[in-house]
């Protein structure tokens, strides 16, 4: 399974919208903290990570949560993981 960044971005935003339906994907700034732009509480955030895991098969360690701040962070993290698992 290989993913290019734009395709992965669409999947991630898709999942985000399933949790926060009011989100306008075009309005998300990939450099700003996601949880400042979208109203996500810790349960929403957990559900977001669970959905990423289920959809992409990527395991996100709890110790890594702190790295996942912006949309770009999330994509970087996922791409690195997916790349490693492909290899």
């Amino acid at each position, binding site marked *: 399974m290989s993913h290019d960044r734009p395709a992965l971005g669409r999947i991630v935003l898709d999942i985000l919208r399933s949790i*926060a*339906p*009011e989100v306008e994907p075009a309005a998300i700034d990939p450099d700003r903290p996601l949880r400042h732009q979208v*109203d*996500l*509480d*810790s*349960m929403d*955030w*957990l*559900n977001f*990570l*669970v959905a990423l*895991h289920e959809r992409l098969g990527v*395991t*996100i*360690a*709890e*110790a890594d949560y702190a790295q996942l701040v912006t949309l770009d962070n999330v994509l970087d993290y996922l791409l690195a993981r997916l790349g490693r698992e492909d290899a």
Partner: protein
Amino acid sequence: MIEFRLPSLGAEMDEGTLLKWHVKPGDAVKRGQVVAVVDTSKAAVDVEIWQDGVMAEWRVQPGEKVPVGTVLATLLAPGEVAAPAAATAPAAVPQSVPAAPPPALPRVPESETTPVAARLAVSPSARRRARELGIDPDGVRGTGPHGSVTLADIEAAVAAHSAALPVAAAPDRQAEMRKAIAVTMSRSKREIPHYYLSEPIPMARALAWLLQRNEGLPITERILPAVLQLKAVAAALQRVPQLNGFYRDGAFQLSPAVHAGVAISLRGGGLVAPAIHDVGAKPLEQLMRELADLVRRARAGSLRSSEMSDPTITITNLGDQGVETVFGVIYPPQVALVGFGRVAPGPWVQEGAVRALPLVTATLAADHRVSDGHQGALFLAELRDLLQQPQALAERVTPAPGQGGQAGGAT
């Protein structure tokens, strides 16, 4: 004969609209089964029944809005035999408030036998069905031989009646919910003499314990700090039970079990605080699953009546929004609300030195008619101590605390 009444699904609720029946006359029901869906101003709620029985008669039709306490249906208790229609309780039509009055269904006349002559024009199956539905078959136009009323005529009459009712009207949920919150919170501020206490709690041990516990576990089995806090509140209430229960009719009723109402904000505004039952008696894993399920169902609008009607205390966690301290408004008839702010590093003095530690501010808003600051302080101190021993807290699975001990005598 069991009367199934519309329960109160929250302090602000004085009426509700029946949206749907899940069981029809003749169906057996079990204690705890969801039998109907009722729309309150806040949400559509699955209403459970608390007795076994067999559905006898719907007294309220889908679409009708009725006051709390109205008999929605009657059921036969196990072993009970259906009484003759003429002897059943009056099928009193509750004050329904439909937008447009539907064609009135002829009801079974109260304690009055149907004239024998009229019986001839109604088929036996139609008469039985009409009795089940609580309508008068003699008022239905017959299309059978010699103008007799058939089973199909009865069904058609009921269908026409239901069709004329307004469909699950969910007017402006936002405005309705705001109104409901306004009523409840105004009552709280008017009637409850609140006092407020606040205590910073070091979270280093709890977080380290959680990180270790969650490590290597699939994401779906990891536990959030909020669950540990929930558990700690229930455990601390065992020490200070005066904060757990209801203030009704001028007196406090202590609840032996902790049913924690968890404040859940809804997307687009408003909030609900449905209960997780018997928090003290459940392990963390189960609490986590139930919390996740509750949040999901609260947002999808499928809460159960028992969750809405009986929280004994409310817990609100606003830390996710980055707030440090919550000053809560008690949800009547409860007598306390526990708030948690965000968990963030802050200065902590230990052995004469200042250190940066993850801290959370826990607050208590409590009802001065029932408890005093001294007891509130004991509660927060206990909460702080419990969160310093996360392993012991996790292992603490106790049956619902009894009424004894320190419950009485406090002034």
